């Protein structure tokens, strides 16, 4: 930048810069204050919730977390959420990685149709099809009950994980394929010349190179699975059975009006937020960069 430009910039800059900072600060405050307020509310005693909401907590009442963890069963829900998220991520990667690899780098009959099918799948939102999936499980369970006297599909965290992984397959395959397609072909050819089989080539050569895109997928889908509640609310119907954290919280929010257990509810909210916030702080650069690689996700 030459000197004349800097001078012009400064002359114009003064007032506009102040206005701009005020606007930025306003938006930032509107985000920081409510989030921080939840953390503050989680250590307040119940009686402190009446009156001015901006008063600082009288003390650090950590009993809320103990109550939420045991009485409100947030501990169980937390474990269910961890389990479902982990299982869904594993299923997703095990299924999507080989598929994306073959679909992006091999030519075979039917490839175009399958690729087109997955592209079309990008437009199917899970909110539309959650009802048919639920009904499919209802009739599946009815048959199992008739034949073997057991039920399997509903109220089963593993099944929820399978549904979560399956419904996110199109986006994941899209993301991984577009990355894998950019890798040069020479690597595989060299591996074949050395006598490596197809599986060995995929696992030893290609997967390590695909690491950046795999990390992006894990970040995105971790957040999606952890925060998800429509599928888990529909598929986990037993009130005494397994539940994910967001669904448990949703119920607590509804009960909260009746019983006024504010402290427990805000402690529960902190339990949901903390894992995602920690992840975000660690990888925020990667996440906001990865988003531009992955493009859009509705």
């Amino acid at each position, binding site marked *: 930048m030459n000197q004349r*430009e800097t001078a012009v910039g400064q002359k*114009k800059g003064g007032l506009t810069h102040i206005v*701009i900072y005020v*606007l*930025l600060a306003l*938006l*930032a405050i*509107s*985000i*920081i204050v*409510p*989030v921080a*307020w*939840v953390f503050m509310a989680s250590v307040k005693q119940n009686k402190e919730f009446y*009156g001015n*909401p*901006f008063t600082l907590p009288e003390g650090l009442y950590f009993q809320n977390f103990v109550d939420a963890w045991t009485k409100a069963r947030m501990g169980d829900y937390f474990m269910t959420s961890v389990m479902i998220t982990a299982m869904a991520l594993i299923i997703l990667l095990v*299924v999507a990685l*080989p598929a994306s*690899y*073959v679909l992006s780098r091999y030519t*075979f009959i039917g490839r175009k149709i*399958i690729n087109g099918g*997955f592209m079309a799948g990008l*437009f199917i*939102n899970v*909110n*539309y*099809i959650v*009802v*048919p999936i639920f*009904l*499919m499980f*209802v009739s599946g369970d009815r048959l199992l009950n008739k034949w073997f006297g057991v039920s399997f599909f509903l109220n089963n965290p593993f099944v929820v994980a*399978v549904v979560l992984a*399956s*419904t996110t*397959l*199109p986006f994941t*395959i899209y993301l991984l394929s577009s990355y894998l397609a950019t890798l040069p072909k020479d690597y595989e050819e060299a591996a074949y010349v050395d006598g490596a089989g*197809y599986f060995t080539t*995929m696992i030893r050569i290609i997967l390590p190179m695909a690491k950046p895109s795999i990390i992006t997928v894990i970040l995105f889908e971790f957040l999606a699975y952890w*925060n998800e*509640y*429509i599928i888990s609310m529909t598929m986990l119907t037993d009130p005494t059975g397994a539940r994910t954290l967001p669904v448990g*919280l*949703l119920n607590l*929010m509804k009960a909260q009006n009746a019983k006024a257990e504010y402290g427990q*509810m*805000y402690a529960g*909210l902190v339990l949901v*937020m903390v894992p995602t*916030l920690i992840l975000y702080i660690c990888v*925020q650069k990667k*996440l*906001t960069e990865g*988003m*531009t690689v992955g493009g*859009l996700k*509705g």
Partner: protein
Amino acid sequence: MQKNKARSRFIVACVAPATILAFIFLVIPTFNVFRMSLLRWGGYSPKQEFVGLSNFATLLKDENFFRACRNSILLIVVVTAITICLSLFFAAILTREKLKGQNFFRIIFYIPNILSIVVISAIFSAIYDANNGLLNSILNLLHITKEPVYWMGDQKLVIYSLAFAMVWQAIGYYMVMYMASMSAISESLYESANLEGASRTTQFFSITLPLIWTNIRTTLTFFIISNINMSFLFVKAMTNGGPDGATEVFLSYMYKQAYTNSTYGYGMAIGVVVFTFSFALAAIVNKVTKREPLEL
């Protein structure tokens, strides 16, 4: 020959699991949405009766459905317009102006996007609470209002309260996206515009906006489709359609018909209509916003 066989086996082993899962959990349910829309069915009972298009005929006379339509369309228009304008504005500021703490603002603005909608709903319930809510106590402190404002209880107001929460959630995501495409614009364009004395506003409208137009178009199309889904998530967690149907939207009405009312066929007919509507709208927007791409 041997090699060919191994290759085919490998291809099938890799592609089959994903294809089968997608078929069971995406293709069949989607097909079922359309099939069930032609049935009268309570869901649990095996009795299914084919009724043709009668579900769609009922839909045309359903006052509540039209109310849900109005609410959905209002949310699409208001939330989309405000979010895109604000995120473009903030993206332009953060990329073009030499500011301190640029990175800090980017990090903070993105936070709502990583929170669960359940968390956001709880936060906004605390903000909008009529008696001890954050918003009313600020208004009270500044002596703007004496009586509490019923942000979630007033039938006229509640949809805008919802819209605000949705904007709050979406801004950071779109801002980061626009920032990425804005930072790809060559610096020399702005330098020559500076030399010619073009103001920042002019620069924004005649350089930045035309050059990222393709990006804006894509986000606009996706925003419309995702807004229909997001409004469902927000309504389900925050208001459940209330008070008295004032925040009922497309998919929440579908869900309600299917579960609470156990009229699955009717619910799926709503699904079909909404699905078609969202694609038609996205296609129209895509067509209307088409411009000659700017070559440089």
